[in-house]
C-alpha cells in the first residue's frame, strides 16, 4: 500500500497529492510518470510525476477528476492509502541548453511542464512560460512557475484571471513580436498540443509534446498506448511519452483517447449514483 501523506484541493475537481512511494524517486527524472491503481478492483492509469523527493521517498501528483479512478482518488484523504504505484516510467525529458525555451502548460498539463521548466532553466536556458486555464479557479502552480521561468504569461479562457485567451494566442504574440524561440515544450490537452504543433511547424521551431494515451502496464507489454509518429507506430509508454510534435498524428491520438468513452461514462454515472444513495 502507498500512503497519501498530503492532499490539497487546488481547484474545482483538481487535487494535489503527496504520496509515499519510496522506490520511485530514486531514479526519477523530469518527464517521467507513474502508473497507479487506487484499490483492488481499480483500473491502472498513468499520471506524470510533478515532483519527487529522494530523501523523503515521496512523489507529488496533480490529479484532475475526469473518470471513475480519478474521482475515487479525489475522495481519499491524507492518511488513506492506494493499492499500487509503480514508476518512474517512460523516457525522461531531454534537457539541454539550446537558448530560449518556451514551455507551455494547458490546465493540469502545467503540473507536467513545471518540472521541465525548472530543469531547462537550470540547464542555462532563457525560459518563457505560458500557462492557460479554463478560469481563475483552475489556476495552479503560479508562484512555482514564476520562480522557475524568466517570463511567465497566464491566460484564462474567460479572462477571469491573467489575460483572456488560449496559450496559442500568447504564442502567436511572441512570434509576432519577433521573439527568439529555439525550442517549444507543449503539454496539455491533445487538442492544444495539436494546435501549438501546427503553429510552430510554420514558425519552424522544434516542438516537444508529452502524449497522454491510455496505458495499462506501461512497460511495452500491452500496446494499448500506441501512437503514430512520422507514419510509424510507437508505444507512448516505452518510446515516449515525449515526441516531436510536428510528427505526431494527433487526429489518431484524439480518436484513440475516446475508445472507452461510453464505458467510462457508464462507470462514472453508476459510481456517482452509488455515492448519492449512500
Amino acid at each position, binding site marked *: 500500500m502507498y500512503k497519501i501523506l498530503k492532499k490539497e484541493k487546488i481547484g474545482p475537481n483538481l487535487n494535489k497529492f503527496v504520496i509515499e512511494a519510496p522506490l520511485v524517486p530514486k*531514479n526519477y527524472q523530469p518527464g517521467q510518470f507513474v502508473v497507479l491503481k487506487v484499490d483492488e478492483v*481499480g*483500473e*491502472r492509469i498513468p499520471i506524470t510525476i510533478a515532483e519527487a523527493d529522494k530523501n523523503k521517498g515521496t512523489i507529488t501528483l496533480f490529479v484532475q477528476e475526469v473518470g471513475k479512478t480519478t474521482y475515487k482518488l479525489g475522495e481519499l484523504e491524507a492518511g488513506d492509502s492506494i493499492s499500487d504505484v509503480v514508476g518512474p516510467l517512460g523516457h525522461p525529458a531531454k534537457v539541454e541548453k539550446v537558448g530560449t525555451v518556451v514551455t507551455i502548460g494547458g490546465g493540469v498539463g502545467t503540473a507536467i511542464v513545471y518540472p521541465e521548466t525548472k530543469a531547462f532553466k537550470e540547464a542555462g536556458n532563457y525560459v518563457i512560460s505560458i500557462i492557460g486555464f479554463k478560469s481563475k479557479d483552475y489556476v495552479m502552480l503560479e508562484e512555482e512557475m514564476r520562480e522557475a521561468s524568466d517570463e511567465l504569461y497566464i491566460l484564462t479562457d474567460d479572462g477571469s484571471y491573467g489575460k483572456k485567451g488560449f496559450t496559442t494566442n500568447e504564442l502567436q504574440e511572441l512570434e509576432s513580436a519577433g521573439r527568439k524561440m529555439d525550442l517549444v515544450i507543449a503539454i496539455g490537452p491533445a487538442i492544444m498540443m495539436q494546435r501549438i504543433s501546427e503553429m510552430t511547424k510554420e514558425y519552424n521551431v522544434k516542438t516537444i509534446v508529452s502524449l497522454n494515451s491510455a496505458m495499462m502496464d506501461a512497460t511495452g*507489454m500491452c500496446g494499448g498506448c*500506441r501512437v503514430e509518429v512520422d507514419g510509424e507506430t510507437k508505444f507512448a509508454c516505452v518510446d515516449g511519452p515525449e515526441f516531436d510534435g510536428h510528427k505526431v498524428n494527433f487526429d489518431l491520438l484524439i480518436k484513440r483517447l475516446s*475508445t472507452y468513452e461510453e464505458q*467510462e461514462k457508464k462507470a462514472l454515472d*453508476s459510481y456517482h449514483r452509488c455515492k448519492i444513495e449512500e
Partner: protein
Amino acid sequence: MSDNKQKARREPMPKQKVEDRVKNFNEVALGYSEEQAKSEAERCLQCPKPLCVQGCPVDIDIPGFIKLIVEGKYTEAANKIKEDDILPRMTGRVCPQEEQCEAKCILGIKHKSIAIGRLERFVADYEAKNSEVKAPEIREGKSKKVAVVGSGPAGLTVAADCARMGYDVKIFEALHKPGGVLAYGIPEFRLPKEIVGREVETLKKMGVELECNVIIGKTITIEQLFEEGYDAIFLGVGAGLPRFLGVDGENLLGVYSANEFLTRVNLMKAYKFPEYDTPINVGEKVAVVGGGNVAMDSARSALRLGAKEVHIVYRRSRQEMPARNEEIENAEEEGIIFDLLVNPVKFLGDEDGWVKSIEMLKMELGEPDNSGRRRPVPIEGSEFLYDVDTVIIAIGQNANPILLDATPEIKKNKWGYIDADSETAKTSMKGVFAGGDIVTGEATVIDAMGAGRKAARAIDEYLKTGKW
C-alpha cells in the same frame, strides 16, 4: 476388459458442457476422478528405460509418480513430481504434453499414449485440496542473496530452487500481481488464478520475499541491485512487446493486441466491468489474427464476453497451426469459426475511427520455410472485404526493451533477446543470469521452468566458486 482393450483406452477428460462454459470464465476441463486416474495410471507399462522422461524438459520421474497413483498414494505422487517441477498444477494444465512426454510414450505407437498431463494435474490438485500449503525442506542457510526479476514460470522456478538451496531470495515483479504470463496471459478457464496464488504462497512460506510494482531497469537498475548487496541476479522478464502486422489501419479503435485484450480480461478482470473498473470493447463479430494458443485464448475469451461470432483468421492451414490440438478442439466445440489460408492486408475504419472491415488476401501453401511449416503464398488478385467489429492481433511478441536499454552490458542476439548460455543461463554481465522467453522468444511455461532449473544450478555453482 481384455488387456489389449484396456491398454488402448485413454481416459477422456471430463469438461464443462459447451452451452454452459461459453457463458462463464470457469475452468473448462474438470479433471479426472480418482477412479479415472487409477484406471489411466494402470495402463502405464512402467518401462525400465522410460522414454517419456526424455521428453520432459525438467526430467520428472513420470513412471515413478504414476506407480504411486496405482498404489493410491496421491500426495506422495504429487511430491514426487515436485522434486523436479515446483508448479505441477500449472504444468499439468498448460504443458504441451502431446509434443513432449506423451509424444514419447511407447503406448502411443500402437494405441494411445498415457495421459501424463491429466494424471499430473490430478495428483497436484489432490494434494492441494487435501493438505495445507507446505514449504519443502530447505537446506541450511547460506549468506548469499539472489534477486529474481519477474515472477513468471522461469522466475518462480529459480526462486524456489535457490530458496531450497538455502539462499536468500527476493522476487521483483513489475505488475501489481505475481505470476507473469500465468496471471495476465492465460485465461481463468484454462488456468484458475487461485492456483497461481497458492504457488506464490508456497514460495513465501519458503522464505522467498516478493515485491510487486518494481520495474528493474527503471525503478531500480541492475547495477543498483548489486550495490544493494545481491550476489546474483536472474532475469526472467518474459518476451513482452506485442508484434503487429505492420499494415494500414492497425491503430484503428477496436484493434487490440492479444496482450492488451488478455491482460484486460485476466489481470484486470474486465469481464466483471463495472464491478471492476477496467473496461473492454467486444463487438458482435470478432476476428482474431493468428493460430497459436494465445489466439485460441483470445477467441474463447471474446466469446465469453458476449461476441456473437468469433473467427480465427490464419494464413496457413489447420495443420500448421502452432496451438495445441486440445485448445483448437475446445475452440471448435465452442463454435469458434476458423478462416484458414487468409491474411489481412489492410484494416478499414468508419468516420469515428472504429475498425469496420478487413481487406483480406487468400493464400496457398508453398514450400516449407525455416520452421519446417509450409510457407503461405498470397494468391494474386484474391482480395476480398471482411466485416468486423473487433480485431485481436495474436501473432507473437518481440523482446521488451526496458531492461536491456538500461543495461547495455548485457549482450543481445540479433532478435533483441538476451544472449544467454543455454546450459548455464549466464549472460555477458558477471553475476547476471537469464532464462525463459526473454532468451528464447515466445515459448512454453515448461520450457521457461526448465531454463529456470538450469539457471538455479548455475547460480549455485557461481555463488559457491565465484567462477564466471
